[in-house]
Structure formats: C-alpha cells, structure tokens
C-alpha cells in the first residue's frame, strides 16, 4: 500500500533518478508517479544480459519515505486491523454460541424422559435375564446332583452284585470241598475207584443216537 500511496503524491518522485532515463514528458517539473515510463519493463533484453555502459553510474535508490506520514499511516492501519479482527472474533463467537444453544435446546425434557424410560426398560430386561440365568444355574445344579446320586447308586449296586457273586462262588467252593480228595481219604477213595470201574466208552451211529451200554475191558 505504501508505495502506491507514495506514487499518488505529485512531487514525491525523485527527479534526478528519473529525469536522465525517462523524462517526465508533458509535465516538466511534476511527474505523477503513475506513469508508464516510470515502471521497470524488460523490453528488448533478457534478465541475463548485462546492463548498458551508460547505466554504469546509475544509482538505484529506494522510494523515499516520509517518517511522520509513515508513522501515522502505520498507526492507522494497526488500529483498523485490530478493530476488524476483533469484530471477526466477536461474530465467530456469537455464531458458535448460537449453535451450541441450539444443540442444547434440542435435547429437551421429553428426550431425557424417553431416555430414562428406555434405560428402565433395559434394567428390566437385565433383571429378567438374571432370573432366567439363575433358573438355568439352579436347574443345572439339580441335574448334576441327580446324576451324581445316580452314579453313586449304580456303583453301590454293582458293588453289591459283585459281592454276591463272590459269595456264591465261595459257597460253591465250600460245597465242592466236601468232595475233595485229601491225604486222609486218599486210600479210601483209591479203593473206591478201583472197586467201581466206570465205563466212559460209548458208541454213536450216523443218526446221532448214543449207546452207552458197551463192554468194558
């Protein structure tokens, strides 16, 4: 902005810097800064070409600055920008606040009410689930106990049967023991066997009839 401001003032362009090169044209003592000839233009040469010998003594000076004006202008700009940014921040905050309010206002009482009702229903559902679960666990326990009992019973019965079996065997053995041959009745039994010869021979014919009455030799 500042260079533009500079160029607007009629006497501000330094004449010695311009007069030799361009010439003010129609206004000899007074060169309006906005003059096409005063602006740098490339024209014939590229940027890599060296400047002409006639320009060897040319001294390029920066645009002159009036210090008081500079201060005044800078101060004014500072204030302007300060005010504008403050306004922008203010409006931004207002919009944000409005949005927040709208959002909060949307969550009205009835929605909260609805929410509470749904939470209560959820609690009920959980309660029912709990009841079902307890029921199930109880049933499971019952089942287990019953099974255990059954197993124990079966075991007991098996044990009993086994014992009975063994008892019977023992009795049978005892019975048979009466007929055993011991050292005492050895002689008597031998005598007995010799006295009563037993005939184990038999005859069988093709029809399967057994004949036990054979001759013992």
């Amino acid at each position, binding site marked *: 902005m500042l260079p533009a401001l500079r160029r607007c003032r009629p006497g501000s362009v330094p004449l010695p810097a311009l007069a030799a090169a361009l010439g003010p044209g129609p206004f000899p003592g007074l060169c309006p800064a906005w003059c096409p000839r005063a602006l740098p233009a490339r024209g014939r040469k590229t940027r890599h070409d060296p400047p002409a010998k006639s320009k060897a003594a040319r001294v390029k000076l920066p645009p002159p600055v009036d210090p008081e004006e500079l201060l005044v202008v800078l101060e004014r700009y500072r204030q302007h920008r300060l005010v504008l940014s403050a306004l922008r921040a203010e409006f931004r905050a207002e919009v944000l606040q409005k949005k927040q309010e709208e959002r909060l206002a949307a969550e009205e009482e009835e929605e909260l009410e609805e929410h509470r009702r*749904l939470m209560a229903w*959820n609690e009920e*559902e*959980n309660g029912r*689930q709990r009841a079902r*679960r307890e029921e199930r666990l109880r049933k499971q326990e019952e089942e287990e106990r019953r099974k255990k009992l059954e197993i124990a019973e079966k075991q007991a019965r098996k044990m009993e049967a086994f014992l009975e079996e063994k008892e019977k065997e023992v009795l049978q053995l005892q019975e048979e023991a009466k007929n055993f041959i011991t050292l005492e009745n050895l002689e008597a039994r031998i005598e007995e066997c010799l006295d009563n010869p037993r005939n184990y021979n038999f005859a069988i014919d093709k029809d399967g009839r057994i004949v036990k009455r054979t001759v013992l030799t």
Partner: protein
Amino acid sequence: MPMKGRFPVRRTLQYLSQGDVVFKSSVKVMTVNYNTAGELSEGARKFVFFNIPQIQYKNPWVQIMLFRNMTPSPFLRFYLDNGEQVLVDVENKTNKEITEHVKKILGKSKEMLEKEERERKKLSHPATFGPKKYHLRECMCEIEGQVPCPAVVPLPKEMRGKYKAAMKNEA
C-alpha cells in the same frame, strides 16, 4: 481381486449400508465382552461377526472394543458422554435379538433419521449447476434431451455465432 475371509459379503457396501442401528449422538464407546467357546456366547459371537461391521459403518465416530474370554457370561456396555454406563446382558440371546434390543434403547428412531435426512436435503438445492462437489450437474449439456456438449459433438452451423454473423453480414 479374490474374496477375502469366511463371509466376504460382510465387506460389501450393500451389506454394510443395510445396518439399521444408528446410535444417538450421546453414545461414545461400545464395549463387547464375550467368549470364544460355549453355547451361551453363541449369539454374542454371531453379533460380533455379522452385525458389528454394520454398526461401525453407520457410526464411524463410535469406538467399539471387543474383549474375549474375560468374563464367564457375555454382555455389552455402552459409555455415554454424560458419564452414564449402560449394561446389556446378552447371555442366551440370538444376534438378531441383540441388535433389536440395542436399537431400541440407544438407536435413533426412524422419524429422527428421516428428519435429519430432510434437514440435510434442505441445505443443497438439486436444481442448481456447479462443481461436482456441491451440485449434481455442472452444465446443461450433461442432461439427456438437451443440446450435447460442443466439445464432444460440434454444434450445427445455424447455432454457431460465426455463421450467424456471416449471414447477417451478407444480408
């Protein structure tokens, strides 16, 4: 591109967009505790396998966490933004029942969804023309039945400016 996974249909957009559980804006985190074995967690497992992708697709800003084999019975827990925690017991439930339950207690109702849809529609006008990002069409030449784009099909002579100017000059 081969199909990936046991049920690749879960990865399709059509399947994902069929999810109808849209959480209320107060729900922030959803946690699922379930077991990888056992009859009781069967429904929870199915829920995690089939329905959670749908839910996450519809609620991209809700954090979903899965915990396996940490508790004897499966449950869901929702953490709302006002600090409230909602516990949902899902033992012995099918995944359909679980989704229904969740939709009932914490999902947006159909009317709410429709209302939001209408609000969103109001913001943009479908009849305006402009960049594809904000409008449906950019130029009239895109519409069927209208004059096609001269970049693709040259305009007939009579519609061109140079012809009309030439005729006027002749006359």
